[in-house]
């Protein structure tokens, strides 16, 4: 628990507990089975209040990415350039994350990704980060 980010709230606690345990977890509705992200206190699909945290595969595809050269905050200056990405999870929700263990020239939209946990150069975490599955660039579409 000492690895929970300072910004976690009661509604998002389950997500960050999962990250601290090295597992990607999403909210799922007990009544209609819909996945949802970001977390909230009710199911956005059927308005049920019965939600559970469930582990997900951590697999997804690269929906978009950018190599950031201009840091938004002075404390992020040492981290540039870094790769910011949108990842469409197998379960459906879209996440924003950083890509690690790769470089921009290898990336193609649609590539298969998997979650890993760590601290990007941004000194917060552990955060869910993503890397190419199998470490190859051959799966791009």
């Amino acid at each position, binding site marked *: 628990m000492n690895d929970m*980010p300072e*910004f*976690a*709230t009661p509604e*998002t606690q389950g997500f960050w507990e999962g990250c601290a345990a090295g597992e990607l977890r999403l909210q799922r509705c007990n009544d209609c089975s819909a996945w949802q*992200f*970001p977390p909230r206190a009710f199911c956005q699909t059927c308005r049920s209040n019965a939600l559970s945290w469930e582990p997900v595969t951590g697999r997804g595809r690269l*929906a*978009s*990415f*950018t*190599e*950031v*050269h*201009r*840091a*938004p*905050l*002075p404390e*992020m200056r040492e*981290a540039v*350039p*870094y790769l*910011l*990405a*949108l990842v469409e999870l197998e379960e459906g*929700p*879209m*996440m*924003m*994350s*950083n890509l690690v263990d790769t470089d*921009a020239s290898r990336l193609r*939209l649609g590539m298969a990704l998997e979650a890993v946990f760590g601290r*990007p150069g*941004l000194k*917060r*975490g552990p*955060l869910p980060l993503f890397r190419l599955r199998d470490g190859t660039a051959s799966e791009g579409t």
Partner: protein
Amino acid sequence: MKARAIIAGVGDTAVGKLEGSSCLALHAEAAAAAVADAGLESKDIDGVLCAYSMTMPHLMLASVFSEHFGITPSFSLAVQAGGATAAIMVMQAAALVEAGLCRNVLVVCGDNRLTGLSRDGAVAALAQVGHPQFEQPFGFSVPAAYALVARAYMAETGATPEHLAAIAVTARRHAGRHPKAQMRAPITIDDVLDSRPIATPLRLLDCCLVSDGGAALVVGRSDMARDLPRRAISVLGTGQMNTHEHLVAAPSLSEFGCKASAAQAFGRAGIGPGDIDVAEIYDSFTVTLLVELESIGFFARGEAGPAALEGALDLGGTLPCNTHGGLLSFGHSGAAGGLFHVVEAVRQLRGDAAERQVPNAELAFVHGDGGILSAHCSLVLGRV
């Protein structure tokens, strides 16, 4: 007969780096100009719509402004919808007038974002629109978010960096014809492509400016039109659509709310995109304008970039767009940035746009978008 809303007066301040300027002083200067342009006195204003300020954040900016300006409006409201704010304020002002709640609504924005905040400060403040837990910790910035949209857009449509650059070059060419524009020196496609990367594929010259400046207008009733010192401009149609705030919650990376927003505005005006003589469309980044031009229906998917390269958006093109230079080259001082688009549309429709005048402009389209293509508002304006 139901009163129709008109834009009776417009005003703006100098734009750029204005040493000694302040949020309230810019508001007051722009407001005074707009009220005078409408042939009114400040006591005639019975409704006030303000936006928000980064340099002087306040819970009640509309009240702060009215106190400062010395008026006691019977209706007052502050609107916060990022880049959609200005268009939403005009939509709201028109609704107030048409509902009979107000006679003369002052819409006013201004901020000294450049001298009061610094460029670093502005970038940091804007990054707060990212989700605090699920976007910001990964190094979210507004340019990075639009870069994510740009990559997806380019992959889908085949648009190239040259197509994006053509938007910046065209904006600069327009700005060169406006004496108040912040950046007037011509640039080339190569200048854009050689400028430093901000968040790939976006480069410095793909990004809007940070400016000090203010703008204002007065929305009144059509039955005052004949007494006005200047030609009145009708608010013919308005529309809005809000699909998300955070990019992770966007329903799509290729279709955004501008489509429905524009369709509403065109439907209410009883016209279509092909009828528009001049367009003033939010251009926070080059890609913003490309996505919106196509989504709104001015160009088929993937065709706005090639058209821009061929001069379609320039004076004399099929759709002169952002004839003042837009956020990319005229200036961007917060909510006033979007209001500059409206002020320019009014000047075009009045025939007051001097060397940047679109000949016989009778119908104008204005669009604002806030967040990451999150909140959209469209206006169709025309000569009375």
